[in-house]
C-alpha cells in the first residue's frame, strides 16, 4: 500500500489499481462511463478527469482510470480545471443523447442522469438535430439496444471479449456515426447476456424482461444469494410493492462471482406459478384442504412418531440453519437424512456455471445429509411406511407425478412452497421460497452466502426453521430428550 492525498485527506491505496479506484474507495464521486473495474481500462469517455500533482511538477488534469497512483501524489477531484473538464465532457455527451428519461428503464440508476443532476448545465447549448438511429433493436431474447442512447463507452464490447472470451458485439463505423452492432444482425448467444444491461451506464442496453416493468426507485432491494446452482452468486433481489420480484441483479463478490451472474439465475424471478401453499393443508375427503397449522403439525408429528419415517428428504434449497434443525428432527424420529441431488444441468464453464443446480449441496453434505438422486429416492420410497419431504421444490425435484403414482400406502408429510398434487401426502405445511426467508447456503467452494427475506411469505406461512421447530416440539414426549 502507498500513501496519496485525495481531496485533502491522506489515504492508503493499492498501487496496482488505477487512481479512479482509489478515488471511489475514498468517497470521492468521480464519474466513470468507459471504466469498469472488471474490464480493461480504455480511457475513452474522458469523464473521469481529475487534477493530480506529483513532486515539483505542475498540476495536470488527467483521466483517473488511466493514471497509476504514485507515492505522495496529490489528487484534487474538485479542482476548477477538473470540474470544468468533466462538465465540458458531459455537455458533449448530452448533445446527441435523447431526452428519453421519462420512458427509459435506466432512469433512477443511470450514471449519465446522476452526473447531469450533480454537475450539469440546466440547458444544453446545442440547437442541432440529434442523431437518428435505431431505438428498439432486438439483440436476441434477452437484450434490446437503443443506439441513440448509447454513449459508446464500449463496456459491452469488452465484456463479451474479456469476460466470456467470445466477442459478440463491436463498435461499427467510426466517429459520430459509430454504433454498437452484432454481426449481420445475429442475436446474442450464451447465458451471460444480461450482464451487459447491468454494465451499460445508460439505457442503451436494457433487458427485455424488465422493459417498462417498474421504476427502479419503487423497487425494494435486498442482498441475497442466487439459488439456481451451486455457484451461489451474490445477488440483489428487487421487489415491487412488496409483491412481485421484478428483477434480480448480480452483486459484487470478489470471492464468488465478481460483478457477473448468468441469465438462468437472473431470470429465475418467480419459480412458482399459480397458487402458493398456505400455512397448512390436511388430507380430507376432498383431498388436501387448508387447515389449522397447529392441528396439521400435530397430525404430522403423530404420524412420524407412530411410524418411523424411512427417510427425511430435504430439498437442496434447504438452508444450513434449516438443515441443522432437520437433522435433529431426523435423529429424534430415527430416520436417515437425505437430500435430493438433482442431475447435472449441462451448464458448466470456466466462468460461473458449476453444472450443479443445487444451491446448498456442500452445506447439506457438511452437515451430514446424504445425497440421493430422484431415481434412488423413488426406488426406496415404496418400502417405507412414511417419509418426510422438506423444502421448496422437493416434490418437483423428486417428481410430482412419480410421487403421486406411489400408492397412498406410503404416507408423506411435506413442507413445501407449492400445494403438491400427491395423493400420499397427508399433511403439508407451507414454507416460504428462497426470497421469503433468511438462511445460509454453502456454495461449491465452501463460501457461505446468505439469502434474504425480500418479501413477505404467503399469509401465515412462518419461516421454515420455525415450522421444523414446531414439528420437533410436537413430537411425543418420549422422543423429547432432556
Amino acid at each position, binding site marked *: 500500500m502507498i500513501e496519496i492525498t485525495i481531496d485533502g485527506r491522506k489515504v492508503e491505496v493499492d498501487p496496482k489499481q488505477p487512481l479512479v479506484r482509489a478515488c471511489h474507495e475514498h468517497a470521492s464521486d468521480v464519474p466513470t462511463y468507459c471504466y469498469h473495474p472488471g474490464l480493461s481500462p480504455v480511457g475513452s469517455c474522458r469523464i473521469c478527469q481529475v487534477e493530480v500533482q506529483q513532486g515539483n511538477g505542475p498540476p495536470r488534469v488527467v483521466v483517473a482510470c488511466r493514471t497509476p497512483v504514485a507515492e505522495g501524489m496529490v489528487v484534487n477531484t474538485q479542482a476548477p480545471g477538473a470540474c470544468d473538464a468533466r462538465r465540458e465532457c458531459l*455537455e*458533449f455527451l448530452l448533445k446527441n443523447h435523447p431526452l428519453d428519461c421519462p420512458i427509459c428503464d435506466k432512469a433512477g440508476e443511470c450514471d449519465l442522469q446522476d452526473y447531469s443532476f450533480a454537475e450539469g448545465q440546466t440547458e444544453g447549448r446545442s440547437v442541432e438535430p440529434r442523431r437518428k438511429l435505431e431505438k428498439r433493436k432486438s439483440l436476441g431474447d434477452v437484450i434490446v439496444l437503443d443506439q441513440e442512447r448509447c454513449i459508446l463507452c464500449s463496456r459491452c464490447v469488452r465484456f463479451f471479449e474479456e469476460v466470456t472470451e467470445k466477442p459478440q458485439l463491436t463498435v461499427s463505423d467510426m466517429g459520430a456515426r459509430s454504433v454498437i452492432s452484432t454481426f449481420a444482425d445475429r442475436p446474442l448467444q450464451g447465458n451471460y447476456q444480461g450482464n451487459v444491461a447491468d454494465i451499460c451506464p445508460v439505457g442503451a442496453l436494457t433487458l427485455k424482461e424488465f422493459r417498462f416493468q417498474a421504476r427502479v426507485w419503487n423497487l425494494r432491494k435486498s442482498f441475497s444469494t442466487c439459488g439456481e446452482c451451486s455457484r451461489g452468486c451474490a445477488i440483489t433481489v428487487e421487489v415491487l410493492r412488496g409483491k412481485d420480484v421484478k428483477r434480480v441483479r448480480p452483486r459484487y463478490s470478489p470471492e464468488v462471482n465478481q460483478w457477473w451472474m448468468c441469465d438462468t439465475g437472473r431470470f429465475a424471478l418467480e419459480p412458482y406459478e399459480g397458487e402458493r401453499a398456505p400455512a397448512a393443508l390436511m388430507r380430507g375427503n376432498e383431498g388436501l384442504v387448508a387447515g389449522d397449522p397447529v392441528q396439521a403439525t400435530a397430525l404430522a408429528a403423530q404420524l412420524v412418531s407412530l411410524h418411523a419415517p424411512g427417510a427425511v428428504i430435504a430439498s437442496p434449497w434447504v438452508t444450513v440453519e434449516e438443515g441443522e434443525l432437520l437433522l435433529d428432527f431426523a435423529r429424534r424420529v430415527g430416520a436417515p437424512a437425505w437430500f435430493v441431488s438433482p442431475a447435472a444441468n449441462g451448464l458448466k464453464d470456466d466462468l460461473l456455471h458449476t453444472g450443479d443446480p443445487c444451491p446448498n449441496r456442500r452445506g447439506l453434505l457438511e452437515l451430514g445429509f446424504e445425497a440421493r438422486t430422484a431415481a434412488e429416492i423413488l426406488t426406496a420410497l415404496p418400502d417405507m411406511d412414511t417419509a418426510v419431504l422438506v423444502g421448496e421444490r422437493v416434490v418437483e425435484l423428486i417428481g410430482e407425478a412419480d410421487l403421486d403414482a406411489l400408492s397412498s400406502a406410503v404416507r408423506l408429510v411435506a413442507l413445501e412452497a407449492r400445494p403438491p398434487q400427491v395423493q400420499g401426502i397427508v399433511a403439508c405445511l407451507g414454507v416460504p421460497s428462497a426470497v421469503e426467508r433468511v438462511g445460509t447456503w454453502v456454495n461449491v467452494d465452501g463460501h457461505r452466502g446468505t439469502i434474504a427475506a425480500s418479501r413477505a411469505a404467503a399469509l401465515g406461512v412462518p419461516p421454515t426453521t420455525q415450522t421444523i421447530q414446531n414439528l420437533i416440539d410436537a413430537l411425543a414426549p418420549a422422543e423429547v430428550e432432556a
Partner: protein
Amino acid sequence: MSEPATYLLERSRIESAHTMEVARKHGAYRGIEKVLREGWTPEQLIEEVKDSGLRGRGGAGFPTGLKWSFMPNRAKDPRKRYLAVNADESEPGTCKDRILMECDPHGLIEGILLAAYAMGTEVAYVYVRGEYRLPYQRLSNAVDEARAAGLVGQGIGGTDFACEIWMHKGAGAYICGEETGLMESLEGKRGHPRPKPPFPAGLGLWGQPTTVNNVESLFNVPFIVDRGAHWFRTMGTEKSPGNILVGVSGHIEKPGVFEVPLGMSAKQILEEYAGGIWKGRALKAWFPGGSSTGLLPASMIDLPMDHDSLKEAGSMLGTASMIMLDETACVVRAMEVIARFYDHESCGQCSQCREGTEWLHQIFGRIEAGNGRQEDIELLSSLASGMAPGKTICALADAAAIPTHAVVRHFRTDLEEHVRLGGCPSAGATQETVGAAG
C-alpha cells in the same frame, strides 16, 4: 540572389530514378554503405542525426535523433523491435511524401535501412495509405530490387546487419496517420489511437519497442550521413535546419511541391515558386501547414516557414502544406469543409472529439448557409476550448480546435457578416454553387 541548395528532389527529377540502376548511379545507398564500411556504431548514427537537428516532417516537428534515442538500450531490453514508416499522408493540402515514394523510392528505403541500423529494428513496415496506388507500387518494386541486391533482408552488405521491409496498406482513415492509430491498424484492428503513456518506444507494435517515422524525415537521413550533420545545418535555421518540401495549393498560378530551406518566408515561396495568387487577385487567407494549422490572414504572409516562427505566431508548421485563398474565397466555406473533414475522420473514442467534431461541423454549416446566430461564434470558441488541448487520447481534437480558434481570432468579421447577412457576402466565382452545408 543564388538559388538555395537542394538535395531532396534532385534524384526525383531524373527519369526512371525509381529504378535501382538509375537511383544508385545518382547516389542512392551511399549513406548505408558508408556506415557499414566505416563500421559506425548505432549510437554514432543516432548522434549524427541528433547533431543535424533534423525535426520530424510528419507534422509534429519532434527531433528525429531524440525520438530514435528513446528506444530502449539493447543490452537491457533484447525484445524484438520494429520501425513503422508513416506513409499515411492524409493531412489536407499535403502531397509531398507521395512524390518521394513515386519518384525516388530508393531514397526512402535507404532512410529506412539507416533508421533500422540506428535502432536495431530488424523489421520495418511501410504503412502506405490505401489510396496511394502508384507510390505503393513503386516502393514495393524498389524493395524487391533492393532485396535482390542484398540491401534488404538478412546479411546486408555482407555484414550481420539485418532489416526486413514489408509493405502494408491502409484503408482510407486519416486517424491511421496518428502513430498509435497506425500501430492499431497495422495490427489488424480499428485505427483507435492508444493513450500515451505508454509510449511506442516502450510498448508499440504487439507490445514491443517501436518507432514511427514519417517518410520525409527518413528521406533526409542518408543525406545527413553522406554529407554530414554540419552540412545539413548550413541550410534552414538554427532550430529548424535543413530543407523541407513545401506544397502550395489553392488559388495560385503554379501549384506544386517545392524544396526550400526552412525559414524561407511564405511570401517568397508564394511569389517565387508558386507564381503568386492566380488571376491577378490578392491573397485573403492561407493555411501554412495543412488544414490543422488553421487559417492566417494575408497580413501574416511574411512569416518564415519554420517551426518556431509559426508557433510564436500562434500557428504551426505542420506538414508545410500551404493552402492559399484569394480575395473572392469564403473562409467560412473553407472552415465548413475542414470541419466536415474532422467530423468524418474522428475515430469516435473520446466523447469531446466524437461529438465536438460533429458539432463544429454543424455550426460552420449553418453559418455558411446563412442560418448562423451571433452566439454561434462564442459557441465555436467554447467548444474548441472544451476539446483541446490535451483533453483527448490523441491530437485530432486539437487539429479541429486550432483552426476553429484561428478563424474566430483572425476572421471574426467574416463569420459575423454571414450571420448578419444570412449568407455569404463574397461575390467570387467559387460561390456559384453555395448550397446546403456538407
